[in-house]
């Protein structure tokens, strides 16, 4: 069988974000990048399926972005992917979800993948569109936000997470695409030997121009911090002082301290 997992590299979300020169996305200076959290679950699930199927199964990881995304691809390889594809695009952050999905679908079109895994959403853009759109373009069956995955003889049984913690159980036949939710599994930490092994694996590089034939359907006007609502107090400084201030507030504003 042939499996594909799509991973995006995103900035550490604890960073400070500043608009870039055009004012439409974040300025990358000083940001540290890592694998999109949702995609860690997608990679783990893909690797687990690959291990279950054993010999004769091939798992490919794909990422679109500038050269820095190679680090994320290497992490996926170290977690257990067999092959890697880097769609090289310095301007990936300017593409809309339709274009990103189109690039992946164009790559996958003639590769006969049986199962494709994506994250439910990316943490920086958060459109929750790319996975489903790839499936639509390829004509794959698809389900989203999965917190349970089982594969047997051409059929996937997936557990979708719904609001309030209720789950919906669905069965779908391959070829299929699933989008992975937090908590689906416990993503493994790559071991040192696997990290070393991953370093030797080849990464196929494809220029984005070879894959993209679609125009953007959505345009970004601006990227900016939220308007400050105000109201709340911000306390900063020495811990002992902060404790005194918070105690005073608790006594003054709440009935919990008597």
């Amino acid at each position, binding site marked *: 069988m042939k499996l594909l997992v799509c991973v995006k590299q995103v900035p550490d979300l604890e960073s400070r974000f500043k608009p870039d020169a055009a004012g439409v996305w974040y300025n990358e200076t000083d940001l540290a990048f890592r694998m999109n959290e949702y995609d860690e679950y997608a990679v783990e699930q893909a690797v687990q399926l690959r291990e279950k199927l054993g010999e004769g199964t091939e798992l490919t990881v794909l990422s679109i972005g500038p050269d820095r995304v190679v680090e994320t691809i290497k992490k996926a390889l170290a977690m257990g992917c067999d092959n890697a594809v880097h769609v090289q695009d310095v301007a990936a952050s300017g593409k809309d979800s*339709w274009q990103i999905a189109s690039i992946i679908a164009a790559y996958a079109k003639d590769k006969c993948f049986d199962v494709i895994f994506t994250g439910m959403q990316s943490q920086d853009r*958060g459109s929750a*569109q790319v996975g489903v759109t790839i499936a639509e373009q390829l004509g794959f069956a698809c389900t989203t936000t999965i917190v349970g995955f089982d594969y047997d003889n051409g059929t996937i049984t997936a557990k979708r997470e719904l609001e309030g913690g209720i789950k919906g159980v669905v069965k779908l036949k391959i070829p299929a695409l699933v989008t992975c939710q*937090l908590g689906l599994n416990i993503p493994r930490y790559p071991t040192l030997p696997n990290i070393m092994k991953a370093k030797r694996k080849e990464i196929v590089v494809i220029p984005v121009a070879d894959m993209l034939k679609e125009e*953007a359907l959505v345009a970004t*006007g601006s990227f900016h911090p*939220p308007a400050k609502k105000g109201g709340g107090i911000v306390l900063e400084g020495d*811990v002992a002082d902060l404790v005194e201030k918070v105690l005073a507030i608790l006594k003054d504003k709440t009935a*919990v301290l008597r």
Partner: protein
Amino acid sequence: MKTLLIGEYREGKLLESTYELSGFAEKLGAETAMLLVGDENSLPAYNGTLYLADAVTCGEYNPDLHKKLILETVQQENPDYIVFLHSSYGWDLAPRIAASLKIAQISEVIGIQDNGSFEVGACNGKMRRTVKSATSRTVVTIQAGAFTAAEPGGTPTVRKLTADGGGRLEFIGYEPAEQKEIDLAKAEVIVSAGRGVGKKDNVPVIAALAKALGGELGASRPVVDAEWIAHDHQVGTTGQTVSPKLYVACGISGAIQHLAGMKKSDFIIAINKDKDAPIGEIADVLVVADVMQFVPALTAKIAR
């Protein structure tokens, strides 16, 4: 301007959140038609045309069939916007419609701009973007709670829809949420641990503050997913919804799904080392500090 609103049912009942779609259309100043795959016995109070398919025959989760019904209705109504909630139903179905029609989709809208742009979140709620559709028709999903539900009223003019053909997904059934051993909804004080507490070994420090304040221990999702704290302590859209007198968020960034579960708390104190964390937008007090330094110091003072 015209919108086609796609509401939701769960286990035969109309979801209240469907009215938020009308709230969005009102804010947009647009006419509406509605489409529901649901049940005649649980119709919305709504003045307008309601395209209704039966969930018993079409399924509550059957994306292939629901897509077909929506596309037929789009032909009939010619809407400028096709509007879903950004929910497990909406984010699953919306991109299928957008891709089929090859039109723009704008996800998780939180605001409407005067110039036809929409405001959406970015970077886990820390930042915002304004975006504009480049196609004449647009699919929109709206963030839960971002648009005030319209005052329900009226009786819909029902137009029945039928669909045949199965769809590729077989829906097996619902699984109830896990049994809860603690009911956070009753707690007067909740002290919650987020990923910012760093590791499982630090959780007792947060639990000690909860105890000193006579409250319960809550948690954000990553802490539960990593098995630092049991699932029934999770606060948020996929956990419990709480409204205690005091909510203390320790090392929690304030993602929308967490806020949805606790923003109705009477008084909110957040401890975060990041002054820009989105939790600051709803907290009454944001303490900019390291949780592992501040929390034990506070607990020691209270316990005395």
